[in-house]
């Protein structure tokens, strides 16, 4: 299935590649399901990231070759993965001890809404007939040292995802440090959203108009 629409700013792959540039060598990183998973493809040369998956593996590697997978070796998105040399398996309480105890350096999550105070909503639309499902997101945002959101700047209907205040149920309060969209890299600061960098070919006004809260230009 291909959706034809005008491409402004970065592709998802380019967003992931840009984010990966901000991860320091040797970092322990947890990647959420969806766009965040793409980050694993773009490790800058000369760096090693150690990927944690909350279902009990540190040192997660890429998907296995066809037919070489093991149904007992999966990631948090329940896709088959591999274990790199130097990996370790552990149980769920130990895995979330790593998360809650502040041992993971960085977590990258998708977002439905991010507020200018760092609030994140990414687990539920709050609609009455939705099946609520939270997974490990609330633990991740509460425990990981830095939490980055990677997301399209606006919803499919054009509404800003970067907002004054989240309308959807929260995943966590004041937890997002930085946001990567197709249009820009934006920090959450005590003064609100602050532009870090515009995507190539995108101008500030274009981003500001599509952001649901004031955007500081530093």
């Amino acid at each position: 299935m291909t959706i034809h629409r005008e491409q402004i700013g970065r592709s998802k792959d380019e967003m992931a590649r840009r984010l990966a540039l901000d991860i320091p060598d040797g970092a322990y990183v947890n990647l959420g399901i969806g766009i965040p998973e793409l980050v694993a493809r773009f490790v800058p040369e000369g760096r090693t990231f150690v990927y944690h998956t909350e279902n009990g593996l540190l040192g997660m590697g890429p998907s296995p070759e066809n037919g070489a997978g093991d149904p007992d070796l999966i990631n948090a998105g329940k896709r088959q993965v591999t274990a790199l040399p130097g990996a370790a398996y552990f149980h769920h309480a130990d895995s979330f001890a790593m998360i809650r105890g502040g041992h993971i350096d960085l977590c990258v999550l998708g977002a439905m809404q991010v507020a200018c105070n760092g609030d994140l909503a990414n687990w539920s639309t709050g609609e009455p007939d939705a099946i609520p499902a939270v997974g490990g997101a609330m633990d991740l945002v509460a425990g990981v040292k830095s939490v980055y959101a990677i997301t399209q700047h606006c919803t499919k209907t054009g509404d800003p995802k970067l907002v004054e205040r989240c309308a959807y149920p929260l995943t966590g309060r004041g937890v997002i440090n930085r946001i990567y969209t197709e249009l820009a890299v934006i920090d959450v600061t005590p003064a609100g959203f602050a532009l870090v960098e515009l995507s190539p070919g995108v101008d500030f006004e274009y981003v500001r108009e599509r952001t649901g809260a004031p955007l500081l230009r530093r």
Partner: protein
Amino acid sequence: MVDKQVQGPKEAVADIPDGASVMIGGFGEAGSPIELIHALIDHGARRLTVISNNTGSGEVGLAALLKAERVSKVICSFPRTANSTVFPDLYRSGKIELELVPQGTLAERIRAGGAGIPAFYTPAAVGTPLADGKESREFDGKEFLLERWLRADFALIKGRCADTFGNVVYNKTGRNFGPIMAMAAKVTIVQVNSIVQPGGIDPEVVVSPGIFVDRVVEVAEPMHESELVAAGATYP
């Protein structure tokens, strides 16, 4: 004489009564004790409370247990899958109760149950709807929620190998909730690919010491949920 080996899945689950609370290991299909779950369906116990991270996929294993309407309440973190409408249908029609728990809180509550810690404080879910009705408290200037332990009457778990004393090792990320559920249940039942004599597992690499395990049952070639789902299988 300590010998925890039982003949088969059927014998292993034969005394699970109606109304029991049952922890079921696994994260998705990894570590899911599918043969024990199918034996529980055959056994017929009803009004179960199931504590498990997910609600199964397709119409086999955990999803089949739900489909057979044996479960009145589920305590889990993620009851949605691309491959199953079983839980959503039951939930929307009011036939099943759901207690949604953040995954790390779920794991820690189970671990606390096993470790004799009746309650603890966690930062997860502070400020979210899942904090509604929960006690909160500040420590060192930060807010935390009070959470209670989780214990169960039975645990159904899948490992790779056990000895007859009940020492268990697991397979890769199939480990997930197994070791902590083994601690938190009154009766812990583990299916493994192979059972060996005491001494057959190096004491340095045991993951679940035998004290946490009551019954071990050999299922030499367990089925894989994803293959069954892909083939459109249903149970029974």
